[in-house]
């Protein structure tokens, strides 16, 4: 990588409007799953083409075929009129096809800069030009308007920030065709806006873009055309100006949804948990409480300290000051074990790192928290293990060939459903959901919110963390806004407007995020 950083994206040669990439009968079978039935689709040079569909519809599979990550079963891909084998990622990149995948696939132990130039390192006489690379990377990041340091280790950033780095990385590689697979899943509105600016700029430079998302408003904001996949079949393609939300949802799930945010109001009962002036790594002096029957929403930017706060409440990290009260009595929560014994349950933020045992069966993942309940002192009840797993699979419509399929073989959204599902049978008093609907499709989101209602009606309380404002806004009875580790504002159900909440979350956030991530 020498000097290419300056001429970021060499202008693609094709005139706009011509077909740049065409799929002819593209098909993919996994053992037990026909993920993509023959699909015909043409992408026009310079367009932003959105792809939507339910969890497990085959979106990511399509992307994996186009980027050479997986071999196709049959069919053809024409690149600028020529058949392309796309057998390896290298070949796809050489053509100018790049992707920002749903799960960040970068090296967590390397620095941001090293990741950006991975495979195209700048070296002189075989010696890596580390400083120069950090400088160049920083320049690119600043240029894109992302507020991130280039010298830190990637693993120290939040998932959302890593996603931005992945996006930045894709732009430095002479890209003609760029695919985003649910890029905003872990981003807050501000980061998402930065990303949209980047996407529009790329489009202006003639790059063709595929944009996959479960958020309809993003599709309408960005895309020129939109294609809908259902069960591995292309249901249709529409110009964005000629379609609407309801039609797309109807095409996606073959039925309509009257209301996504299903909100039931219960009269709040006794206080379940209370934090008094709680401080810990990443947050300071937070006081709040959760009552039975209420949803307490935590909104803020990524890195604002919400996840750190709840993991401390849950005993994963030590508090440095303050008190935790459980049902009115002060308690010491020294481990997750203590927390679970009290009656807490946590569905963590990162499904890959914290939520799932990927190379184990769906059934084991779903039952992990409740093995104690479904076994006597010695033996597990096989029947109960099956029933519990099957119930969650049915309730959450987890798309899997059998309950014994490995979690890694499920689509992203379906994996997320396991992270949620494993706590639903647990019977806790306080449920903490950290970004519970990341990558989950509209239909299932509605289902999850209904299940929230069911939990509340049984007298549980919920802490809901989301970086997606509409979600907390429409669901939370009490909404706390976090900014840089502090609780800065509190609202009731719909007592403030989006604008006000956003301002509170953003204010005085000009400096670099630097070390505090």
């Amino acid at each position, binding site marked *: 990588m020498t000097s290419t950083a300056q001429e970021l994206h060499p202008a693609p040669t094709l005139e706009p409007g011509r077909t740049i990439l065409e799929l002819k009968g593209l098909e993919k079978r996994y053992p037990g799953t026909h993920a993509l039935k023959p699909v015909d689709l043409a992408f026009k040079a310079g367009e932003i083409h959105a792809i939507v569909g339910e969890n497990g519809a085959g979106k990511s599979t399509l992307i994996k075929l186009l980027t050479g990550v997986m071999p196709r079963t049959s069919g053809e891909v024409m690149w600028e009129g020529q058949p392309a084998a796309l057998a390896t990622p290298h070949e796809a990149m050489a053509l100018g096809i790049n992707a920002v995948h749903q799960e960040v696939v970068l090296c967590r132990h390397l620095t941001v800069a090293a990741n950006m130039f991975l495979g195209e390192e700048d070296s002189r006489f075989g010696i890596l030009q580390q400083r120069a690379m950090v400088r160049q990377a920083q320049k690119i990041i600043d240029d894109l308007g992302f507020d991130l340091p280039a010298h830190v280790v990637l693993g120290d950033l939040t998932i959302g920030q890593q996603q931005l780095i992945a996006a930045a990385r894709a732009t430095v590689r002479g890209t003609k065709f760029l695919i985003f697979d649910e890029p905003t899943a872990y981003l807050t509105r501000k980061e998402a806006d930065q990303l949209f600016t980047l996407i529009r700029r790329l489009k202006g430079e003639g790059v063709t873009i595929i944009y996959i998302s479960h958020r309809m408003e993003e599709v309408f904001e960005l895309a020129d055309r939109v294609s809908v996949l259902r069960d591995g079949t292309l249901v249709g393609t529409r110009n964005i100006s000629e379609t609407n939300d309801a039609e797309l949802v109807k095409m996606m799930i073959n039925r309509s949804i009257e209301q996504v945010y299903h909100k039931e109001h219960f009269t709040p009962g006794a206080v379940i948990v209370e934090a008094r002036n709680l401080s810990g790594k990443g947050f300071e002096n937070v006081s709040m409480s959760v009552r039975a029957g209420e949803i307490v929403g935590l909104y803020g930017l990524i890195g604002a300290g919400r996840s750190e706060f709840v993991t401390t409440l849950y005993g994963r990290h030590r508090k440095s000051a303050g008190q935790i009260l459980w049902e009115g009595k002060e308690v010491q929560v020294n481990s*997750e074990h203590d927390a679970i014994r009290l009656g807490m349950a946590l569905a963590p933020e990162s499904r890959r790192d*914290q939520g799932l045992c990927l190379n184990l069966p769906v059934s084991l993942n779903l039952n992990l928290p409740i093995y104690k309940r479904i076994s006597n002192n*010695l033996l597990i009840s096989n029947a109960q293990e099956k029933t519990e797993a099957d119930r969650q699979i049915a309730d959450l419509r987890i*798309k899997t060939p059998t309950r*014994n399929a490995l979690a890694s073989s499920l689509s992203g959204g379906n994996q997320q459903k396991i992270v949620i599902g*494993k706590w639903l049978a647990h019977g806790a008093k306080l449920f903490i959901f950290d970004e519970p609907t990341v990558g989950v499709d509209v239909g299932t989101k509605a289902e999850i919110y209904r299940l929230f209602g069911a939990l509340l009606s049984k007298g549980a309380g919920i802490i809901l963390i989301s970086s997606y404002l509409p979600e907390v806004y429409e669901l939370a009875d009490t909404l706390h806004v976090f900014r840089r580790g502090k609780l800065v504002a509190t609202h009731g159900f719909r007592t403030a407007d989006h604008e006000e909440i956003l301002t509170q979350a953003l204010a005085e956030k000009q400096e670099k995020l630097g070390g505090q991530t």
Partner: protein
Amino acid sequence: MSTEAIPAEKPKRNYNALFGLTLLALLVLLWIILSVATPSFASANNISNLLRQGSMIAILAVGQTFVIITGGIDLSVGAVVGFATVIVAMLINAGVPLFLAILITLLVGVAIGMFHGFGIVKMGLPPFIITLATLTSLRGIGLLMTNGNSISINNDAFQLFSRSSFLGVPNLFWMVILVGIPAYIFLHHSRWGRYLFSVGSNAEASRLSGVNVQRTIYMAYTLSGLCAAFVGVLLASRIGIGNPTQAEGWELQAIASSVIGGTSLFGAVGSVHGPLLGAFILATINNGANLLNVNAFWQRIITGALIIVIVYFDGLRRRGK
């Protein structure tokens, strides 16, 4: 996607069973070939001998498998076997009742396993390092205790045990069954077994799901230490001496058996029947090679090649699935 005619059966369990059957077929095939190739193989005497040889590694391999499933490794088992022969020999010769001598030896194995758990969980040492340290130091301690001499055990009943048979099957092989059945139930039908897998797959996710990760790790190494001490008792009974340098390299044979039996060194994949079959396949190869007068050096080479071949094909099939 379409889930083609939802196979209600579980592909994973099927796969496990299939792999087990393949190993069993391989073992039977070896036996048939050897029976044809050398007349002495099929003799009752030789078969008993083979079962005795294989049994001890098989028990070690079961304990080792628990550890490997959590993503760890236990390099100390061979040394623990040697050390246990010394302990049991000394206790018996000191006049401690047989039952008590054996119990104390087993507890020593448990203590060694707990120490490994402590090193990994509390001191944060990698399993490879802490068990490697035990491997060398236990042999040293044993040599100090015996001044480098062998202790011959003066208790005939104790030695008779390993030479006798029950229902025509050598007692040592019965011990495999004695260990194997509870181990199978533990690994596949108890929640502790599930926790071994989940910790090996993703410790953080397990922790957040309420699994006591530390206790699970303690448990795996303790069971491995216990199995090793038990094998030490059996070995002492078989050779009639206590000697800390016995069982040299058995840890590698145990690991090899486990891996041949389908255990993944990356953790979270493994069974009980696989390592048992693996151990007897290795024992058959050694036994057959002896009978065929194959140079002992070649036996090692064959074992190495076999490990590569079996693990390669296992990996291919898994990926194909």
